[in-house]
């Protein structure tokens, strides 16, 4: 229940931001996708506004022309009255029908528009680079789908039609007034301007306190969250009283803001209503004086002395003019908020998407006995190859490598030698040979996290990256699959620059198991199948068996059909990790990245998970980032990172003998976190 509402409270400050220019136009371009519906709605609103106006004016005509003539007549002829009533009845029926039709049609326009915006937004979100998600809070992204679309919904379904209908009514009334008397109309307009200024002032004031209120709500909410989540600490330290005092204080602030915001919100209506009465009084007095003194008057209809009927009509019209104006000015805030929301949505949709200019593709091949002749096939063979486009001679990376110097040059050139390429040069066997040559990278380009890194991993090797938090371990793996792009240097994958590889294919070739396991709502089987969508149930179960996940899954209430919710919250951390490993196993990629996959599991469970991972790692190039060093002992190569530089490299025995950083980490005399 909370998800829907919680972000709204933190979003308050942004809600009052001004919309960027062009937002309205863009929003309406979505709305106008429903052209004919909008056209019919516009017509219907005009018709129903007209019938409402007719209802207001009808009475006077009825009395003057159809009732009064009958008074005193001995044998009144009801026929004209009946005809008139029948006509009105028809008009009302048309009006009612029109009001129903637009209310009915607007639903589709409104919901369709929202659905289109929502779907576009989500589709665009899928294409955004990881960087976007790093720099934009999850809560903010979530609230695009909740608050911002919600205010938009209200605006499209209520505020826009209501404003339009109000403006139509007001304009109709104004036209009628102008017809009767231009001076009176001008006076009314001036008065209306004053009214709008006053209402705007109140609405702005109320908006200001509204923002304050949202801010205070945010404060109270985060305090409650902190206090409730930390209640054990509160109790252990007998801190209830002090915490309560703190809460009362924040709550009092919320009360101050909330009562002011609501006060201003509540008085808008009385102000609009009573200003309308004032106008009425002033017009009545002026009209009375004009009528008595026989002032000349001019309207679009012509000029002449002000008649009694005209004065009464003007008074009635002033009511039908000022009421919708009041409504429009009260809707204004709603529309501003909706536009601000829309501009946030559009801003997200304008975020540049992940670039993908690689042309090298991943294909399945059969390898001949000579070891380098490859035939592309459409089924799984256990062998993959990088396939170059027809115009790619495969020398781009080599050319880049030639420009390097020293060790980097050696490492880069060696890549080409190690690569197994078919005779025509179009296919290169995927082996998992990864090389970094003079790579420099920073999440913020001016603050590099990795400096001039050069290293290589031989095919089939288990590479371990260790080092304290912030040393740049995860960064390295993020660069291989191009979650981020490097600023300088080259990353070669089987001798091919990763930039030249088609991104989906690059990622297909790299399985990944992360420390923070993310599972999706659905059955256990669905979650494993996420690794390869066309995997059969048997494939998934086989993968689970391979990775030691099978036994615990069978113990779940419904086995593989158990539905996981909220990120698999019913499972232990170790169990969740096992599922994510099975997911990677079913994808069966040529290379793997295991990023701190066992760090939040106790040592006993870790053994089970570790075995599962060991099975998975067999025969694949694997990059392991480990928290507990016991898990990297059997790695072929261990690289110790410190502040983005490789400070030690070797296998476990070598590094222990070296008695350097690794030795210290391993014996627990350096803090890892």
């Amino acid at each position, binding site marked *: 229940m*909370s*998800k829907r509402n919680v972000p709204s409270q933190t979003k308050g400050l942004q809600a009052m931001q001004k919309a960027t220019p062009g937002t309205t136009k863009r929003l309406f371009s979505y709305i106008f996708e429903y052209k004919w519906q909008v056209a019919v709605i516009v017509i219907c609103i005009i018709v129903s506004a007209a019938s*409402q106006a007719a*209802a207001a004016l009808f009475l006077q005509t*009825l*009395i003057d022309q159809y*009732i*009064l003539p009958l*008074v005193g007549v001995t044998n009144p002829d009801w026929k004209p009255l009946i005809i008139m009533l029948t006509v009105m*009845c028809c008009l*009302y*029926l048309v009006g*009612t029908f029109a009001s*129903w039709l637009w*209310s009915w049609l607007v639903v589709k326009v409104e*919901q369709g528009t*929202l659905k289109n915006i929502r779907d576009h937004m*989500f589709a665009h979100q*899928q294409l955004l680079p990881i960087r976007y*998600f790093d720099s934009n809070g*999850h809560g903010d*992204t979530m609230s695009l789908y*909740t608050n911002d679309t919600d205010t938009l919904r209200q605006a499209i*379904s209520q505020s826009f039609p209501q404003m339009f209908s109000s403006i139509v009514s007001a304009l109709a009334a104004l036209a009628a007034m102008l017809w009767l008397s231009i001076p009176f109309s001008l006076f009314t307009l001036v008065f209306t301007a004053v009214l709008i200024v006053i209402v705007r002032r109140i609405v702005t004031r109320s908006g200001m306190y509204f923002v304050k209120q949202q801010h205070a*709500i945010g404060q109270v*909410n*985060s305090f409650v*969250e902190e206090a409730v*989540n930390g*209640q*054990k*600490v*509160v109790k*252990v*330290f007998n801190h209830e009283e002090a915490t*309560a005092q703190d*809460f009362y204080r924040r*709550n009092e602030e919320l009360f101050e803001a909330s*009562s002011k915001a609501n006060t201003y919100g*509540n008085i808008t209506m009385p102000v609009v209503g*009573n200003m309308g*009465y004032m106008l009425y*009084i002033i017009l009545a007095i002026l009209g*009375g*004086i004009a009528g*008595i003194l026989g002032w000349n008057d001019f309207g679009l209809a012509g000029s002449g002395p002000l008649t009694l009927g005209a004065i*009464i009509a003007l008074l009635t019209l002033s009511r039908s003019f000022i009421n919708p104006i009041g409504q429009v000015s009260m809707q204004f805030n709603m529309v501003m908020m909706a536009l601000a929301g829309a501009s946030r949505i559009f801003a997200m949709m304008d975020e540049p998407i992940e670039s993908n200019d690689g042309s090298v593709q991943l294909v399945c091949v059969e390898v001949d006995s000579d070891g380098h002749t490859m035939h592309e096939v459409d089924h799984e063979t256990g062998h993959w190859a990088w396939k170059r486009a027809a115009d790619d001679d495969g020398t781009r990376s080599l050319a880049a490598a030639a420009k390097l110097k020293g060790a980097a040059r050696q490492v880069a050139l060696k890549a080409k030698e190690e690569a197994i390429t078919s005779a025509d040069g179009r296919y290169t066997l995927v082996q998992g040979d990864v090389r970094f040559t003079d790579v420099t990278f920073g999440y913020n380009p001016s603050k590099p996290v990795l400096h001039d890194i050069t290293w290589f991993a031989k095919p089939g090797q288990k590479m371990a990256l260790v080092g304290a938090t912030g040393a740049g371990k995860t960064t390295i793996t993020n660069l291989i699959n191009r979650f981020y792009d490097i600023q300088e240097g080259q990353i070669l994958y089987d001798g091919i620059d990763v930039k030249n590889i088609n991104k989906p294919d690059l*990622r297909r070739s790299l399985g*990944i198991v992360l420390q923070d396991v993310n*599972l999706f709502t659905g059955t256990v089987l669905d979650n494993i199948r996420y690794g390869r*969508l066309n995997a059969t149930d048997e494939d998934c179960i086989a993968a689970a068996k391979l990775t030691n996940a099978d036994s615990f899954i069978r113990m779940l209430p419904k086995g593989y059909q158990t539905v996981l919710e909220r*990120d698999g919250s019913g499972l232990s951390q170790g169990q969740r990790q096992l599922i994510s490993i099975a*997911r990677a196993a079913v994808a069966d990629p040529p290379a793997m990245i295991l990023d701190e996959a066992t760090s939040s599991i*106790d*040592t006993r*469970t870790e053994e089970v998970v570790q075995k599962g991972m060991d099975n998975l790692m067999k025969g694949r190039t694997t990059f392991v980032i480990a928290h507990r060093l016991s898990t990297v002992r059997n790695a072929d190569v261990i690289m110790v990172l410190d502040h983005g530089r490789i400070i030690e490299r070797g296998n476990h025995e070598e590094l222990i003998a070296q008695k350097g950083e690794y030795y210290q980490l391993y*014996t*627990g*005399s*350096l803090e890892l976190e």
Partner: protein
Amino acid sequence: MTDTAEETGVVVRNQTSQPRHLISTLLRSLRQYTKASLLAPAYVCVESILEIAIPTVMAALIDYGVSAQSMPNIVKFGLILFACSLLSLFSGFMSGKYAAIASSGFAKNLRNDLFDKVQSFSFTNIDRFSTGSIITRLTTDVTNLQNAYQMIIRIGVRAPIMVIVAWLFSFRISHSISMIFLFVIPILGFGLIGLSVWVHPIFEKIFHTYDNLNNVVEENVQGIRVVKSYNREEFEDKKFGRISMSIYRAFCRAEHILSFTVPLLNFCIYAVLLLISWMGAQQIVASGNNAAHGLTTGDLTALVTYTLQILMAMNMISMIVVMIIISQASAERIYQVLVEESTVCNPEHPRMTVVDGSVHFDHVSFRYSDSSEKPVLDDINLDIASGQTIGIVGGTGSAKSSLVQLIARLYDVSEGSLKVGGFDVRDYDLEVLRDQVSMVLQKNILFSGTIADNLRWGNPHASDEEIRHACALAEADSFIQEFPNKYNTYIEQGGSNVSGGQRQRLCIARALLKKPKILILDDSTSAVDTKTDQLIRRAFREEIPSTTKIIISQRVASVEEADMIVVMDSGRILNCGNHKQLLETCEEYRSIYVSQTRNQDQEEE
């Protein structure tokens, strides 16, 4: 798929709750805002009566002033109208202000009451509601109720008054015509409320689907790396598209039903207008437009105004009904918290001193909920003498944390008895007990505030010297001194700006400041390097020898030197003894030890 929308309240919602009791319980939180809560409707009454009276005066202004071309009458009725509208403006101001104060104040008191209540809860209570649900109740639910309350004391008063007074006015003018309203009001009322009631379950469903949509977005955003590394962008698009489509359909259905409300209202207004016109015309003709004989044209105009007022007010009433239906769930959820009795409370004549730090478990069993089948702790017997150091080891799920939480009475035992200092923990004053039993929890929580603020939780009156001493014991002083603001360094919410190891050491220092008789460390040095860990333990031994120290740890090294080590496995004590004994007698202990000491072997090679 189980019902996520209800996950928060489903356990308690099924309990019986009488609505009357519910309302009176909630209203108890009005307190100092009772006056505002009464004033607001009072001013609303004035406002609504004026709203009906003003059109009458307007009619008079036209009839006797403008039409009669009588300047004095124009001025006279103008002034009356002016006074009325000033009074109406004033009442509008006052009612708006008092309604805002009353509703915000009501919400404030509710939040305070809820907070107090939650503070008094035991963890059994909290587990019953779940923390997430408690937070929702304290925030969203209260806000919902605040809005509903404000609407009820303003529009909920205004609309019925308008209907009744306008009807009385119309009755005064013409008995027969006023009967039309008696006929139309129920039709419109049933129609509008019927539509809302019909549509309500669809909206419930929509909100539920909305939760699913949010869930998909949330999972997508959180798992974006997984999505990207498996190239599941299109798959996610389709998944989202399906839910997006079902929201579209459900919303369309609901709003299509609701699209009948405006036409229904219009239809009723128009029907009444036509009926009034017809009947009015006949009556006017019959009376000869003479007030003495019956209906006049002025009366007819007034009747039309009343029609609009009555029917618009009916529309407001239907809105209120919807609002009440929606807020009912929130009211119930708040009520459940307010009436919940804490399961851990002080005895009548509590013991105010804890003699020593001895702990005695006597056939203790414990389950988190009475209904759970398997106990979390099963028949625990354990004797800890004052001043001993006890180590507890065991895998995840072996209930180590549950065991120690009983000592500070965070939970009550289900069976058996637990004695601290020779007396059952339930005999002590809670505050006294918890002052003497200091726990460093597994989930180390620091609160936003300076380091010193956080440490003073242990002892609000601690001097700077005492704080430094405690930090020195916990090996925290050295890194605190490195911060530019030292002890005044600000800790962000959740302590995110200090490392895990630093956080743990701060939490230990905080616990030490209490100078407790029993100190419990629940896996609280896991992120601290082994050397520092050792230094902390040595400090314990030398500086607080008389304090009973209970240390839960994953690392055998952290408990190796303890007087007694307890090996736990799925809620039972598997074995007890010192390090040497256990190595000989306990297979489980040996295997944990071996798996962790391979390091040292390697080191010696």
